[in-house]
Each structure stands twice: as structure tokens, then as C-alpha cells.
């Protein structure tokens, strides 16, 4: 069995949200290296344009769509732009996310709402819009970036963990609904990564957190990429509705 051609994303069109974040950058590079045509989205036009320039040497088509996922029109806007630019969407990677930590007894309701606005409602809006062209095409892969916190939340993570748990439920429901239409929906649940949001989560508890990870170290964004590539590829043709933990054994 020759793996390489099937792992590759040559010719596939991949829409990726949160493309300029720590994990988003690694995912974009991974898909670009695998030959995918990219439609990258993020909120900041300047940062997104600069990152697209950094990826240019990869030699794959790279498009950018500046969008705030809390905009109710974002889902239709991104999908419409992607279809106009590329004609189809083969994979959608819902990576954008935010967090607001705080003890439940002290957490501001507006913080909870904001986290869910981005992580749940923003992702849902784009998923909702992308399913139509995928169902019509009878093919598509959706990969939702969840978090180990959905299964094993820490103190102070009520907003973030609940948003990721909601996303995981959406993954399972959508997978059941679209399985007969050639559309697969899966999630990845990274543990603590050595960069990005985890740096904010850890704070002074970093050493304690690392001690709780069986592998004894934080993960790297590059270690999440292969699983996402796999879930976007035909190699995972019989996989749907699953959440893949990538956490050094933290949730084992």
C-alpha cells in the first residue's frame, strides 16, 4: 500500500479558520506542503496577508478571506468567497477559537457569551454554510478543532471547556446526519500545546500541568497537523463522528 499519494492533498480545496494563530499556522503549512489549495480566514487583514506571503514559496494557490466569525454573515461570506475563488470545498477545518478563563462564581456572563459566540456559534455558522456544497458534491471532510479540556476541564475553564464540549456534540450530530451524503465530520482534541492559547491557560500552573501529562511534556502544533491531514484525506474514508485526542496521554 502506497501511502504518500493518499496522504497528499494535491488539488483539494481546504478552508481553514483561525489561520494566523499558533495552531492555524502549522495547519496551513501542513496542508500547503501536502499540495492543497488554501482558503485561509482570520480577523486581521494585515496579519493574514503577511502570513499568506510567508506561505507563497510552498507554490500552492493561497486565498485569503478576512472575516470575524462572530459576524452572522461570516459563514455564508466565507463559503461564498471560497466557492467563487476555487469552485468547491473539499475540507473545512474549523480551528478559530478564543477563551476567557475565570472561576464560575466569578466568571462574567459576557465572557461566557463571547467565547461561545466565536467557538460555537461562529463555527456552527460556517459549518452550516459549508454543508450545502459538500452535500451537493456528495463529498467533503470537516475537521473541528476541539480541546482536551472538553473531556478534562480544569478549574477556570468553564467557558472554554463548555464551548469545546458543545462543538464535539455538534461534530457527532452532524456526522450522523451527513454520513450518507459522503460528508465526514470529525474533531481533534489537542492537549496543552507549547504556544498559542495554552500559554495563557497555563500561567503559573505550567509545571503542574506538565507533570500530569503521561508523556511529560507539552505538545507542539506540528504534532496536531498529521491527524488533521489524515482526517481530511481519503485515508480516513471510514472515519466519521470521532474526536481524536492528541494530548500526550493526558485524557487516557
Amino acid at each position, binding site marked *: 500500500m502506497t501511502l504518500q499519494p493518499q496522504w497528499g492533498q494535491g488539488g483539494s480545496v481546504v478552508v481553514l479558520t483561525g489561520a494566523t494563530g499558533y495552531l492555524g499556522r502549522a495547519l496551513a503549512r501542513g496542508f500547503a506542503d501536502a499540495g492543497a489549495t488554501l482558503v485561509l480566514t482570520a480577523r486581521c487583514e494585515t496579519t493574514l496577508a503577511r502570513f499568506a506571503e510567508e506561505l507563497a514559496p510552498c507554490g500552492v494557490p493561497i486565498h485569503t478571506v478576512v472575516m470575524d466569525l462572530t459576524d452572522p454573515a461570516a459563514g455564508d461570506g466565507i463559503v461564498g468567497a471560497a466557492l467563487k475563488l476555487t469552485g468547491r470545498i473539499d475540507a473545512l477545518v474549523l480551528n478559530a477559537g478564543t477563551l476567557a478563563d475565570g472561576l464560575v462564581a466569578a466568571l462574567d456572563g459576557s465572557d461566557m457569551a463571547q467565547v461561545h459566540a466565536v467557538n460555537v456559534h461562529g463555527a456552527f455558522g460556517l459549518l452550516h454554510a459549508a454543508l*450545502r456544497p459538500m*452535500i*451537493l458534491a*456528495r463529498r467533503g471532510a470537516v475537521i473541528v478543532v476541539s480541546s482536551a479540556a472538553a473531556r478534562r476541564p480544569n478549574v477556570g475553564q468553564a467557558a472554554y471547556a463548555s464551548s469545546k464540549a458543545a462543538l464535539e456534540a455538534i461534530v457527532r450530530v452532524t456526522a450522523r*446526519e*451527513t454520513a*450518507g*451524503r459522503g460528508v465526514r465530520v470529525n474533531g481533534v482534541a489537542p492537549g496543552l500545546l507549547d504556544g498559542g492559547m495554552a500559554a495563557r491557560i497555563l500561567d503559573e500552573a505550567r509545571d503542574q500541568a506538565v507533570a500530569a501529562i503521561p508523556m511529560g511534556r507539552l505538545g507542539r502544533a506540528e504534532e496536531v497537523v498529521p491527524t488533521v491531514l489524515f482526517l481530511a484525506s481519503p485515508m480516513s474514508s471510514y472515519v466519521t463522528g470521532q474526536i481524536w485526542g492528541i494530548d500526550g496521554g493526558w485524557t487516557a
Partner: protein
Amino acid sequence: MTEPAALNVVVDMIRDTLSLSGREGEKVSSDTLLFYHLAFTSMDLLDLLFRVEQHFDIAIPDGTLYGLARGEMPDAEFATDSVLSAAGKARLMALLNDTPAELFPERIHAASLPRFCTVGAIARLVDARLAAREPCSS
């Protein structure tokens, strides 16, 4: 009754939807009921509507059937708490007059209206949307 212009295309699309679950051999005609005869699921219906919208370049938003059945009747008279009144049920039955009367239950929830559609009703719905889209010729 004259066959709806969109009937043949809609029948082909229904056959395509059925083929996804290995139901190629089902008889599909104008008076076939999607949910009763063909065991359509809500996902099958959505799939069909996506295809119809794409093929004919029309939009059939949620509530289209409800709006057609209600017509000029005030919403409060047509349904209460999303359950059709007796008058509302009569209007629905008049709209879907090729569906056997005994299939309409006493209590009809607004969200369940597509369940009473024949293939012909879907084709008529498409015809209506196409007619609404086309500009008057005179």
C-alpha cells in the same frame, strides 16, 4: 390535472436521493408520498431541496410550504403555538389535494408539513417558485 412542468426533473432527483441508500427500485410518480411511500428522512428532503434549488436556481426557504398553505389567512387563525387550527388544516389539505385525506392527523405541527407532500406537490412548489421569479412578459 396537468402535470407540473418540473415533475420529470424532480422525479429524477428523488431517484438520485434514493440511490444513496440503495433504494433505486422504488416506484416514483406524481402521487407518490415522499415520507409514506418512499420512507424519506428529513435529511433526504433537505438533500432533495438543495438539488432542486441548485438545478432551477431558485430558493425554497424554510416555511415556504407553510406560507403557501396559509395564504392570506392571518397567522393567528392558521396556527396556534405552531399547531395548525382546523381552518389551517383545511387550507393545507386544499393545497396538498393529491394527498389522501386520511393521512392528515388531527394535530398537525407546522414543522411537519413537508411530510404530507407528494412528488407532484414538490414539483408544483418548484413551478410556483419559478413563476414567482420570472418577470411578467407584458
